[in-house]
């Protein structure tokens, strides 16, 4: 007996603890109904670890009669971090038929669970004469849906729509307005896709949220339970004043269709038939106010609430040494419109152009962040000097006025630059340190300036000059080959030498002719010709008879005339050698010339 009591005790403990999370909601399927129509009222009890739930107590329903009741119960068990959670949902469904026309309120229903009473919100309902409810959401007109009757469209519009809400409808130029796009549906949707996303012309837009998947939550609206998904949230900064109408967003989706007449759209479909519909958000107009007149000097268009801070390092430097000054503008607003703060006018400092860095940040739905301007500042006077304030002017849309934020002045102590030549000679030696940095000095004057623009490789002269060593190398190789051949190839060597030899012998013969040595002259002429022929034909000169010469020459296709001349010269030389006295000087002269001519002719032939 003891164990069941303990179990019961635990059960009670647990359920009383969990029952705190109980929700009790009333919804209707439509808030406008014809007198002949029907309303379904659903009371939903949801809670973790619910035990038995008693029937809820319905309010007095003056204008309706209950024509049917039903209830269902489901439990969802989930494991989170090892803990088991059982969420139970009990639905009580009542079919109500109106009894008269007019506007009525379905009062609060109540339920008592674990000794605690939970109530629902009252729901206003309008009963009109006739059949279906009719009418749609004001202002919204989805495009005509193919294959749907007007009645279908009306019902569709009540149960499926795209809503855009701005966080404000009146803003200043440059002030942030946030748009939120939500999808409301009472159907199961498939293939949800954007068919048109707004371009936001005239605005600087920054996305705050873009749904990667539809994440539905329950939301009750006009007494009906909707599945609501946040699609997109975007921050807009208008660039110019005037009434700006924003583009509508369009969304396409498939909803299941049931072919049974009367119940057009339902959550389940055995045959998988779907209907493609296009949703469009309301047209939306934002009134953009111009910034008020009387902007202070130094205003560069920054809108938002900004603060300015400044820091300088180091605070004590030598004259001419750089100081790094960081000025940070931070706050909520469009960072792109944040420009450099006004630089202080000071003769004590030289301020160089800043290096700009930014870090954007989203706080909730507000765009903001900080922009840092890092200046290099060079003090130009020694002593205690003050770096004056950097001023940043912006328009604060909340306070509707211009605001000037200034950094506090920063005191800097500047020591005089060390000069090496001060006070004659130095007692102690010190390492020379670089105390400032500047560009190097200009180059000195010139006597003349050469043109360095034209490069050598662009001139043909230089390029062709490069051929010289290659040509020289080729020439050297050819000459080397010639020398090698003279040494190794006897025929080649004799041939190359033949002309020179013949010329030398002829010169000797000429001297003999002039010296009146007739026989020696003829012998020399004979040798010159026979040696030339032997060299050219590469045969021994000793065994070279006149007949052999004629045969060799004929083999080499030398003309008969030239062969005849050769034979003639040989004969005349022989004759003169044996009968020298008969030969006249003029004849010797002729013989000499003829021999020269024959050698010249032979050289071209063999």
């Amino acid at each position, binding site marked *: 007996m003891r164990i069941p009591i303990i179990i019961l005790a635990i059960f009670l403990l647990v359920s009383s603890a969990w029952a705190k999370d109980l929700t009790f909601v009333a919804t209707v399927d439509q808030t406008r109904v014809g007198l002949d129509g029907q309303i379904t009222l659903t009371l939903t009890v949801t809670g973790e670890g619910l035990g038995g739930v008693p029937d809820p107590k319905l309010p007095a329903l003056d204008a309706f009669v209950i024509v049917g009741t039903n209830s269902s119960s489901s439990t969802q068990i989930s494991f989170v971090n090892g803990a088991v959670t059982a969420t139970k949902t009990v639905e009580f469904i009542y079919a109500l038929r109106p009894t008269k026309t007019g506007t009525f309120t379905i009062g609060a229903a109540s339920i008592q669970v674990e000794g605690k009473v939970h109530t629902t919100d009252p729901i206003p309902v309008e009963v009109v004469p006739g059949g279906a409810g009719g009418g749609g959401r004001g202002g919204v007109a989805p495009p005509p849906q193919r294959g749907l009757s007007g009645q279908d469209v009306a019902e569709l519009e009540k149960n499926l729509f795209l809503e855009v809400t701005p966080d404000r409808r009146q803003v200043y130029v440059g002030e942030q307005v946030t748009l939120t796009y939500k999808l409301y549906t009472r159907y199961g949707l498939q293939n949800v896709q954007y068919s048109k996303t707004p371009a936001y012309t005239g605005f600087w837009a920054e996305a705050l949220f873009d749904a990667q998947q539809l994440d539905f939550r329950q939301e009750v609206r006009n007494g009906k339970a909707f599945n609501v998904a946040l699609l997109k949230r975007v921050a807009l900064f208008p660039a110019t004043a005037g009434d700006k109408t924003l583009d509508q967003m369009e969304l396409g989706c498939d909803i299941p269709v049931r072919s049974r007449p009367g119940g057009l759209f339902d959550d389940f479909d055995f045959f998988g038939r779907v209907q493609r519909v296009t949703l469009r958000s309301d047209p939306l107009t934002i009134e953009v106010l111009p910034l008020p007149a009387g902007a202070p000097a130094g205003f560069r268009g920054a809108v938002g609430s900004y603060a300015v801070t400044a820091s300088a390092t180091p605070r004590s430097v030598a004259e001419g040494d750089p100081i790094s000054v960081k000025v940070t503008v931070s706050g909520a607003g469009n960072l792109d419109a944040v420009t450099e703060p006004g630089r202080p006018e000071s003769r004590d400092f030289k301020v*160089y*152009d800043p*290096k*700009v860095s930014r870090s954007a940040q989203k706080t909730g739905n507000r765009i903001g962040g900080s922009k840092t301007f890092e200046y*290099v500042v060079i003090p130009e006077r020694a002593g205690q000097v003050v770096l004056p304030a950097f001023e940043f002017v912006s328009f604060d849309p909340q306070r509707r006025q211009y605001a000037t934020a200034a950094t506090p002045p920063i005191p800097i102590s500047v020591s005089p630059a060390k000069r090496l030549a001060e006070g004659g000679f130095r007692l102690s030696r010190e390492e020379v340190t670089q105390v400032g*940095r*500047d*560009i*190097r*000095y*200009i*180059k*000195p*004057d*010139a*006597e*003349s*300036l*050469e*043109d*360095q*623009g*034209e*490069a*050598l*490789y662009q*001139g043909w*002269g*230089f390029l062709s*000059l*490069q051929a*010289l*060593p*290659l040509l*020289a*190398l080729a020439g*050297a*190789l050819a000459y*080397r080959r010639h020398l090698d051949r003279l040494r190794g190839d006897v025929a080649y060597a004799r041939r190359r030498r033949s002309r020179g030899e013949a010329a030398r012998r002829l010169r000797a013969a000429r001297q003999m002719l002039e010296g009146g040595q007739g026989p020696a002259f003829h012998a020399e002429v004979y040798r010159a010709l026979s040696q030339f022929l032997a060299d050219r034909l590469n045969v021994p000169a000793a065994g070279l008879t006149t007949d052999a010469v004629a045969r060799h020459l004929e083999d080499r296709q030398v003309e008969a005339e030239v062969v005849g001349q050769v034979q003639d010269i040989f004969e005349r030389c022989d004759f003169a050698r044996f009968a020298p006295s008969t030969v006249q000087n003029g004849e010797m002269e002729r013989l000499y010339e003829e021999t020269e001519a024959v050698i010249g002719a032979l050289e071209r032939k063999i």
Partner: protein
Amino acid sequence: MAARVMLFICLLTSVPADALDGATRLYNQGNALYKQGKYAEAAAAYERALASGPRNGRVFYNLGNAYFKINRIGRAILAYERAQRLMPGDEDVASNLQFANLLKLDKETEGEVNAVARFVRWLLNLFSVNLLSVACSLCLFGMSGALIGRVFRPDPRLRPVWMGAVLSLGVVLLVSGTLLAFKVHAREFEQAAVVVAGETDGRSGPGDENIKVFALHEGTKVFIQRSEGGWLLVRLPSGIGGWIRARDAERI
């Protein structure tokens, strides 16, 4: 042989004497104005010297200094870049270019480069195109001379001398030839430019109606891809590309 090459170079690089005198006078005038602190006037004098005469690195360097002093960082960087092309290896130019680059608005977009890339860049900046051309030429002459020597004095004791000369000159030729090829390629095909306008927008196409894709500030170096109707398609070292107005940037 070397004397002949030098004579040849002198002939190639000489310019008409009268233009030289005018340009030199303007250059010296600019220096005098610079010394008086009249930087804007000095810059104008240097610009005139360049317009009338030879392209000389010293003039570009001094022009860069004058622009730097009147806070025109874009023009200063452009002049230093031009000076560096004409006088690579000049320490003053390298130092001032680096200093001017520190003061420009846009961050260095080239990112981290490794030691090898830094060494190659240093090597490329060390020698001028003409110096490398002459070096290649001398190597060619030297190698041919050594080979000819080898042909006519084939004494086995002399052989290592000839072949050593050919090999060592060949290595020098290979290195200087490679560097020369890089430099000539950069000179002929890389169209670098420097932004001289205070700020210019990079757009997705040539025309103001196109979407702004980035903003560039004075002094930023870009590479020109092509040009069309007063617009230039430029690429940043980081790889982003866009069209900017041709008048906002000037070719180096």
